[in-house]
């Protein structure tokens, strides 16, 4: 854009409008359930995970990373999945599912 264009307001700076619009719509879409499972996980999930690690670690030696907690909504079914991978025996996998 030339200085004359700018002076006479011949062209608008539209990229900043684009950015603003995108930020608003994407914040909305990320939060909404538009894609089924792509939604914010509940805020208590990390704490649940930590407490579970603590309990399991009382009995078996595990890494923090070895325990995965995953929550998922499908229609009117909610699924809480807890997955613990035991270290020394490689593929040994204890998993436990609960529906509510």
């Amino acid at each position, binding site marked *: *854009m*030339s*200085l*004359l*264009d700018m002076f006479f307001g011949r*062209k*608008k*700076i*539209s*990229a*900043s409008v*684009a*950015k603003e*619009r*995108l*930020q608003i*719509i*994407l914040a909305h*879409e*990320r939060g909404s359930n538009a*894609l*089924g*499972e*792509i939604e914010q996980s509940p805020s208590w999930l990390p704490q649940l995970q930590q407490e579970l690690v603590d309990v399991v670690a009382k009995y078996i030696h595990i890494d923090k990373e070895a325990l*995965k907690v*995953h929550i998922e909504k499908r229609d009117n079914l909610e699924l809480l*999945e807890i*997955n613990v991978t035991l270290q020394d025996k490689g593929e040994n996998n204890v998993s436990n599912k609960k529906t509510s």
Partner: protein
Amino acid sequence: MAKVIVITSGKGGVGKTTTSASFASGLALKGFKTVVVDFDIGLRNLDLIMGCERRVVYDFVNVVQGEATLHQALIKDKNCDNLYILAASQTKDKEALTQDGVGNVIDELSKDFDYIVCDSPAGIERGSFLALYFADEAIVVTNPEVSSVRDSDRILGILSSKSKRAVEGKSKIKAHLLVTRYNPERVENGEMLSVKDIEDILRIPLIGVIPESTDVLQASNTGVPAINLKETIVSEAYWDVIGRFLGEDKELRFVNAPRKGFFQRIFGGGN
């Protein structure tokens, strides 16, 4: 074990196939045994971009359906010994690929190759889902334009919730942002989103910026991946992507418009 990389975008026509061809060629030229797989069932195009369209006998669907072996269907690149192409089929039946079938092909390719590059179709339907499902890493191709950025965001959501790694609770797919068809002049004029804007919005690390260039058309006309067009900016930009992907530290290039002269700045023109 091979590393599986999907080239994806959501939106159509942003440069996925162009990127798949150049990215796979670059890795192969760096000495890695690489295969590039066209997932765009019904709209085969990668073969044209790679310049091997007349050598397609069997395709991906033939292999999945057991009508040909992988060995029969893989096409060796004419320029590079380390590079193979698996063409998409021209069948109209979009259901021809099954998740298990694709999984088996990926497993078999994994034994022989270092990298498996998956050229995704546009959209968020079955074809693009299968292209990203098995991925370890993703290159999200985005144009500096609102609908492309929004679609990339949706794809990132799918990568982090529906891919094999997500479903199995493994470590996340590593996603890289590749901005293509970038026009620094229009960005400086405030007419187009900048790389920085796109990074701010999508919040994934940038692997490169490919400028808009007529050389890409010439590359496709002649069936030579753009990375092989010597002494062009596009080729240099793709080589930078390869370097960064392989862990080299490369400064970002080609993101600033050439400086204009005094009269051009006052009266405009020249762009």
